C-alpha cells in the first residue's frame, strides 16, 4: 500500500518564513547597525545631491540673469545713443553688429538640471553646463568652463548613485552571505527542512525580507524625499518626472536583484559562511572596482580620442594663416579716434572698423576650417558610447551607473545633446549677425528681440525609456542566469 504525502501550500509557509526571518532580523543588533548606516549614507548622499544641484541651479540662474541684465543695459544704451543722450565707444557699441556678436554681446547656452539630477550627479562637475556663445570659433568657447578643484574631480562626488552602485552590494552581502550556510552551521537547516517546507520556499522567504529591508531605504526613501523636495521647490521638476522616477526605481531594483542573485548562487554551492563572504567580496572587487576601470581602459584604447595637442596646433596654424590673409585690414588705423561721430549709426548703417572686420573674418574662417576636426571628436565620443553600451554588461556596476546618470540627465547622452543644441545655437547666432556685419547694418532696439536665445529641448522620453529598459534587461539577464545556476545547485544541496 502506498502512502502519498500531500505537500502543504507553500504560500502559507513562505509567509511564515518571512514572519520568522523578520523577527530574527529585528532581534539582531547588527542588522539595526547596518540599517542605520545605510539610512545615514542614503540621507547624506541625497542631501549632498540636492545641495549640489541647487547650488548649480543658483549659479546658472545668476548667469542667465547676468545675460538678461547685460542685454537690457545694452538696449537702454542704444536707445540713449539714438536719442543723442549717450556716446558709443568703439568696444562698447550696441549698434555695431560686430561688437554685439563678440564677447561684448555674448549669451550663454545653459543646460538645466533634470528632475532626477540630485540622485546621480554623474559628470556634472566634469562637463560644463553652460557655454558662452560668441561669433568666435567653438573651439574657443566649448571647453570645460566651470571652476573646480582637480582633486575634487579626481575623487568624484558623493551622491545616491555612488551609494547604490558601490555600497548597496556590500550591505546585501552583510545580510545574505550566510543565508543558508548559517542555518547549516547551526544545525537548524536540517530541522527546518524536516518540516513541510521546501528549500526554495525557505530561501525565497529569507530573500524577500532582506530585499524589502534594503529596497525601502534605497528606493522608497529617495523617491519620497525627492517628491517632497520638488513640492517645496528644492529640486527640479518637469513633466514626465514621475515616469523617469519609475524607471529609476526599476533600475535600482534590477541592480539589487543581481547582487541578491549572486548571494543565492554563492550560498547554493554549500560552502561555509567565511568562504561565501570571501567569494562575494572578491566578486565585488572585480565587478565594481576593477571591471569598470578595465572597461574604460578598453573602450578608450579601442576608440581613442583624437589628439587635443594636435587640435591646439591646428587652431594656431589656422589663426596665423587667417591673420596673414587679413593683414591689410589689421594694419589699418582706427579712423574714429577723435571723431566719435563715426561710431554712430546713420540711415540704418554703421561703420565697422577695419580691425573689427578683420577680427570677425578671422574667427569665421577658423570656425569653418576647424569644424571637421571638432566633428571628429564628437564622432569619437559617440563611438565610445556605443562600445560602452555593447560591452557595459561585463560589469553590472557600469550598467547601473550609466543607467542612473542617463535617467538623471547627468550622463554622456544628454551632454552630447547639449553640445549639439549649442552648436545649433551658435549657427543661429552666426546667421543673425554675419549678414548684418557684411552689410554694415546697424542694430536697432527692435532687433534686440530677434537676437537668438538658447532654449533647451529636453531628451525624448521614448529614448530615455528605451535606454533605461535596455539597462534593466542587461541587469536582469545575468540575474536570471545566476538564479538558474542557484536552482541547479540547490537540487543537490546537502543539508548535512
Amino acid at each position, binding site marked *: 500500500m502506498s502512502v502519498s504525502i500531500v505537500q502543504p501550500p507553500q504560500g502559507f509557509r513562505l509567509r511564515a518564513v518571512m514572519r520568522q526571518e523578520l523577527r530574527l532580523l529585528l532581534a539582531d543588533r547588527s542588522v539595526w547597525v547596518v540599517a542605520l548606516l545605510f539610512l545615514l549614507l542614503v540621507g547624506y548622499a541625497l542631501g549632498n545631491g540636492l545641495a549640489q544641484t541647487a547650488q548649480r541651479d543658483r549659479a546658472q540662474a545668476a548667469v542667465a540673469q547676468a545675460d538678461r541684465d547685460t542685454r537690457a543695459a545694452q538696449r537702454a544704451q542704444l536707445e540713449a545713443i539714438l536719442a543723442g543722450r549717450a556716446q558709443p565707444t568703439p568696444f562698447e557699441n550696441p549698434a555695431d553688429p560686430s561688437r554685439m556678436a563678440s564677447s561684448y554681446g555674448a549669451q550663454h547656452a545653459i543646460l538645466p538640471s533634470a528632475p532626477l539630477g540630485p540622485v546621480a550627479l554623474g559628470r556634472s562637475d566634469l562637463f560644463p553646463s553652460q557655454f558662452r556663445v560668441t561669433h568666435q570659433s567653438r573651439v574657443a568657447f566649448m571647453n570645460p568652463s566651470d571652476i573646480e578643484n582637480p582633486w575634487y574631480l*579626481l575623487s568624484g562626488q558623493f551622491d545616491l548613485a555612488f551609494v547604490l552602485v558601490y555600497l548597496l552590494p556590500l550591505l546585501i552581502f552583510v545580510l545574505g552571505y550566510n543565508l543558508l550556510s548559517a542555518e547549516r552551521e547551526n544545525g537548524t537547516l536540517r530541522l527546518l527542512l524536516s518540516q513541510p517546507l521546501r528549500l526554495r520556499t525557505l530561501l525565497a522567504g529569507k530573500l524577500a525580507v532582506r530585499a524589502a529591508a534594503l529596497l525601502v531605504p534605497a528606493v522608497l526613501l529617495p523617491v519620497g524625499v525627492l517628491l517632497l523636495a520638488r513640492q517645496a521647490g528644492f529640486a527640479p521638476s518637469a513633466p514626465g518626472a514621475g515616469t523617469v522616477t519609475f524607471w529609476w526605481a526599476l533600475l535600482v531594483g534590477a541592480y539589487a536583484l543581481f547582487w541578491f542573485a549572486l548571494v543565492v548562487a554563492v550560498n547554493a554551492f554549500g560552502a561555509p559562511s567565511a568562504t561565501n*563572504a570571501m567569494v562575494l567580496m572578491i566578486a565585488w572587487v572585480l565587478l565594481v572596482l576593477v571591471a569598470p576601470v578595465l572597461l*574604460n581602459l578598453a573602450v578608450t584604447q579601442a576608440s581613442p580620442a583624437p589628439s587635443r*595637442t594636435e587640435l591646439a*596646433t591646428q587652431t594656431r596654424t589656422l589663426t596665423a594663416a587667417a591673420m596673414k590673409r587679413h593683414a591689410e585690414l589689421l594694419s589699418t588705423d*582706427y579712423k574714429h579716434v577723435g571723431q566719435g561721430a563715426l561710431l554712430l549709426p546713420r540711415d540704418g548703417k554703421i561703420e565697422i572698423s577695419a580691425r573689427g572686420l578683420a577680427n570677425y573674418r578671422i574667427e569665421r574662417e577658423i570656425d569653418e576650417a576647424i569644424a571637421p576636426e571638432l566633428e571628429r571628436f564628437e564622432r569619437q565620443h559617440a563611438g565610445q558610447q556605443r562600445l560602452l553600451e555593447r560591452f557595459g554588461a561585463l560589469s553590472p556596476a557600469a550598467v547601473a551607473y550609466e543607467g542612473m546618470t542617463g535617467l538623471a540627465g547627468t550622463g554622456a547622452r544628454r551632454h552630447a545633446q547639449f553640445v549639439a543644441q549649442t552648436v545649433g545655437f551658435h549657427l543661429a547666432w552666426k546667421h543673425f549677425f554675419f549678414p548684418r556685419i557684411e552689410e554694415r547694418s546697424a542694430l536697432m532696439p527692435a532687433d534686440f528681440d530677434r537676437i537668438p536665445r538658447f532654449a533647451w529641448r529636453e531628451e525624448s522620453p521614448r529614448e530615455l525609456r528605451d535606454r533605461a529598459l535596455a539597462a534593466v534587461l542587461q541587469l536582469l539577464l545575468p540575474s536570471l542566469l545566476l538564479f538558474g545556476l542557484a536552482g541547479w545547485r540547490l537540487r543537490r544541496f546537502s543539508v548535512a
Partner: protein
Amino acid sequence: MWRWIANREFTERLRDGRLLWAGGLVLVLLFTALGVGWAHQREARAEQQAAQALDYRDWLAQDRRHPHDAAHQGMHAFKPEAPLAMVDAGINPYIGSTVWLQAHRQSEVKFNPAQDATGLQRFGNLSVGWILQVLGPLLVIVLGFNAFAGEREQGILRQTLSLGVSPLRLLAGKALALAASLAVLLVPAALVAALAVGLGAAPGERADALLRLAAWSLGYAVYLGAFVFVVLGVSALCATSRAAITVLLALWVAQAVMAPRVLSEAARAAYPSPTRLEFNQALQAELKQVSDRTWLQAFGTTERWGRDVPLSQWGIALRLDDQASYPVYDRHYGRLWDTWERQQRLQEWSGLLLPLLAMRSYSMGMAGTDFAHHRSFTTAAELHRRRLQDLMSEDLVAHADPLGDRHFAYQSGPELWAKVPPFVHRTPRVGWALRHQLRSLAVLCAGLLLAAAFAAVAVRRQRALA
C-alpha cells in the same frame, strides 16, 4: 626566533595559494597599468615636444606685422608629461596640458583628457598608483587577516605563547612575513617600473626621475607597512578570523571607497571655491578699476581711443594696462589656487586616520602630477606670456609714430620675434617635490608608528588570553 616565525608564516602563505592567486591578480593588473602608462607617456611626450617646437618655429617664421597682432596670435605652452606620470597620472586627466599665451589676459589650461573620456572615468583610472592605493591594502588584508585569529581558533596561538615566545617577537615575525610576501610581488614590479621610468625619461632628467621613483616607492612601503600592522593588530584583537575579516573589510571600504569622496566634499564645504561667474565678475571689476586708475594717473582720462590719448601713445597705454593687470591676475588666481591647496591640506591631515588620503597626495606629488607641479607650470607659462607681452609693448613704445595719428600701420620683423625665447619648462626637482609633500610623508610616517603601536598593544594582550 622572529626570523623562524617569519619563514614559517611566509611558507604558509605560499602553500595556501593566497599569495599566488591574490598576489598574481594584483601583479597582472600592475603590469597592465604600467604597460598602458608607458605607451601613453611615450605618445604624449613625443606629441608635446613636436607641438612645442612647431609652435616656436611658427612664431619665428611670422611675416612683418604689428607687434600687438603677434601678441594676439600668441603661442601655446604645452605642459611636459612628468616621467613618473606613467605610474600615477594624478590630477592630469582632470586638468589640461595646453595654455594659450595671448595678449591681455591670463589663460587657463585647456583640453583636459576627462572631457574626451567615457562616463566610466568616474570609477577611476587604471594606474600603478591606483592599484597600490586601493587594492594594495586589500591584498594585505587577504594575506594577513587570520595571522593571529586563525591560530587562536586552531589553538596554536596558546601553544606558541606557552612555549615562552614573546608576543612582540611573534608580531615582528608575522609582520616580516607579510612584508616579505608583499616584497616578493612588488619588488620585481618596482624594478620593471624603474627600468621603464629610466628609459622613458629624457637624458637630463633620468637621475631625478629615478630618485623620485625611489622616494615614491618609499611612501608606498610606509603606507602598506601601516596596513600590515593594522591587519595584524585587528587579527590579534578579534576572537575569530571571520570577525577579523569583517572589521578589516569595513575599514578598507571606509578608507578606500568612501573617504576620498566624503573628505573631498567636506574640504569643499570648509573652503568653498567661487563659481565661474563670481570669479570672472570679481576679476573683471578689479581689472577695470586698476586700469582706469592707471589711465587717470598717466593720461588724465579714462576714455579709450579718445582725443586725449593720441595713437602714438598706444604702446605706452598697452604696457601700462598690461603691467597693471599682472598683480590683479596674481591676486585672483592666487586666491583661487590657495583655496584649492587648503582643501587639499585638510584631506592630507585626515590621512592620519585614513592613510589613503595622505598617500594619494604624496604619490602624485612625487610623480609630479599633483596641483603644486601644475601650479608651477601655469606660473611659468604666465611669466612667459608676460615676457612676450612686455617685449611687444616695448617695441611699440620704441617705435611710436612721431606724427601721433598712427599705431597699427607700424610693422615689426623677425628680429623682434627672435627676442622672445622658446618656452621651456623643466619639471621641478625631487627636492622641491619632497618639500611640498613633507606634510603627507610626515602623516604617513605617523600613521605607520600609530599602526605599529596599535598592533603592539593588541598583541601584548595575547599573554592574558593565553
